[in-house]
C-alpha cells in the first residue's frame, strides 16, 4: 500500500523576471519520510520550499499541503497551515534583538494568539525544545553570543517548538564542522522518529543525506530530474546525476 502524500506539488512554475527558476516542477512528500532535495547552488531549492510555506507565490501550478490547495488560502488559513509546517531558514533568521528564550517564545505566543500564556507552560516548552538540541544553558543569551553551529541548533529548536507535522529544512548542516553536522543529522532522524514528522531536507552535504534520507529528488534545470534512494542515484548511469555524488 502506498503511503499518503502530505505535500503534492504539481507543475510548479516560478520565475524572477527572465530567470525561470522552476519549470513544471512536480514531486510528492509522503507521510513519515525524509525527502532530500538535491541541486546546484542557485537551482531554486530555497525558492521551492518558500513557495510551499507561502512566502513566495508561484506563477502557476498547484501545491497541496495535507490535502488542501494552498493557492487560494487567505491569511488566516496560511497561518493555520504554518503551525503544522515548520521551516528552518538557510540563514537561521534568529531575531537578534531578542534572547534565545524570546526567540523560542515568539512562534508559540504568536500562533496561540495570546500574549499572556501561562508562564510555566511556555517555559516548559522552551526548555524542552532547548534540551532536545542540547543547548538548555543558552536560554538567556543573545544570538550574537552564540557560535554558528549553536545558532543553527537554536533555529532548529524554534522550528520544532510547535511540534509541526511537516518540516522544511533549508541546508541544516551547511557551514558546520563534520561532527556538529552529524549531530544535526541525527537530530533530524530523532525528530522523524519521535514525532513521526515528514520532512523535506535541502542539502549538499553527502554525510547528512546518507544519514537522513529515505528518498532523494534531484532538482536540475527547474525540473524534478531524477528521484530515488540515495544508493540508487549514486550508481546512476546519467552523468548529471552521478556528478553530485563524487
Amino acid at each position, binding site marked *: 500500500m502506498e503511503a499518503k502524500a502530505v505535500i503534492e506539488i504539481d507543475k510548479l512554475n516560478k520565475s524572477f523576471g527572465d530567470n525561470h527558476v522552476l519549470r513544471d516542477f512536480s514531486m510528492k512528500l509522503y507521510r513519515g519520510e525524509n525527502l532530500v532535495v538535491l541541486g546546484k547552488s542557485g537551482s531554486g531549492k530555497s525558492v521551492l520550499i518558500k513557495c510551499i510555506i507561502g*512566502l513566495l507565490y508561484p506563477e502557476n501550478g498547484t501545491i497541496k499541503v495535507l490535502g488542501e490547495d494552498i493557492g487560494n488560502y487567505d491569511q488566516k488559513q496560511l497561518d493555520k497551515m504554518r503551525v503544522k509546517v515548520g521551516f528552518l*531558514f538557510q540563514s537561521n*533568521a534568529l*531575531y*537578534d534583538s531578542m534572547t534565545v528564550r524570546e526567540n523560542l517564545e515568539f512562534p508559540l505566543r504568536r*500562533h496561540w*494568539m495570546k500574549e499572556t500564556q501561562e508562564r510555566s507552560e511556555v517555559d516548559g516548552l522552551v526548555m524542552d525544545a532547548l534540551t532536545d538540541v542540547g543547548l538548555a544553558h543558552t536560554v538567556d543569551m543573545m544570538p550574537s553570543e552564540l557560535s554558528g553551529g549553536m545558532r543553527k541548533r537554536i533555529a532548529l529548536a524554534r522550528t520544532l517548538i510547535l511540534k509541526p507535522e511537516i518540516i522544511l529544512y533549508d541546508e541544516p548542516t551547511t557551514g558546520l564542522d563534520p561532527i556538529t553536522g552529524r549531530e544535526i543529522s541525527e537530530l533530524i532522524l530523532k525528530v522523524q522518529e519521535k514525532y513521526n514528522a515528514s520532512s523535506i531536507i535541502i542539502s549538499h552535504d553527502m554525510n547528512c543525506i546518507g544519514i537522513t534520507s529515505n528518498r532523494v529528488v534531484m532538482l536540475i534545470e527547474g525540473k524534478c530530474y531524477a528521484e530515488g534512494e540515495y544508493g540508487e542515484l549514486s550508481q546512476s548511469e546519467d552523468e548529471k546525476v552521478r556528478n553530485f555524488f563524487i
Partner: protein
Amino acid sequence: MADLFSIFRKSEFLQEVGHIAKFAGRFFSEGFQPRYEFREFIRQCYWVGYKSLPLVGITAFIMGLVLTIQSRPTLVEFGAESMLPSMVAISLVREISPVITALICAGKIGSGMGAELGSMRVTEQIDAMEVSGTNPFKYLIVTRILATTLMLPVLSNLSNAISLYGGYLGVNIRGSVSWHLYWAQVFDALSYGDMVPSIIKTFFFGFAIGLIGCYKGYYSTKGTEGVGRSANSAVVVASLLVFIIDLIAVQITDLLNLT
C-alpha cells in the same frame, strides 16, 4: 500622452515616490485594523522617545544659547537689546527647534530603522516573522511609524522648553535679565499662532521620518551593502522631506494668516 506616461514610468525618482506613497497607503489601510501590536508600539516609543532625549536635550540647550549670543550684537546695533528674549523665543519655537529636532531624529532614528529593518530583511528575520503567524508589516512598520509620529511632537516640545533655558543663559552672559522678566517676555512674545502650527508640523515630521526609515529598511536589497545603503538613504531622504514639509507648512500658516 502615451509618451508622457512612459517618461513617468521610466523616471526612477517618480517610481520611488510612487512606491513610498503606496507604502504610506498600506500603513493607513493595515495600521488601523486589529490585531494591534501594543507591546511593540510601547517598546518603540521607548526607543524613539526616551532614548533620544539626551541628544535632543543637549542640542536644544546649546542651540538656544548660541542663537542668543549670536543675535545680541545685531540687536544692540539697533538699540533693541531688550527685544532679545522675545526674538529668540519666536525663532526657536516657530522654526529652529522643531526643525533641528526633526533633523537630529532623521539622523538617529531614520538611520537606525533603515539599518535594523534592512538587516532583518537580509537575514530573513522578516520572513521568519511571517512564518511565525505575525504580520511583519504591522509588527515592525506600523508600530515604528506610529511611534515616531507621536514621539516627535513630544521631543520637539521638550526641545522648545530646553532651548529657552539655553536662551536665558545666553541673555545673562552679557546682559542681565531676571528670571521672572525673561519668561514674562518670552510668553508675551509667543501666541497660539506660533505654537499650534509648530506642533502640528512636528507630527508630519515624525511621520515622514518613520515612513522613510521603515520604507528604506523594509525594501532593503539583498546583502550587507544594501543595509548600509538603506540606512544612508533613509537619512538623506528623511532630512530632505523635513525641509519640504517645513516649506509647505510655512505656506499654509501664511495663507491662513496665523502669523
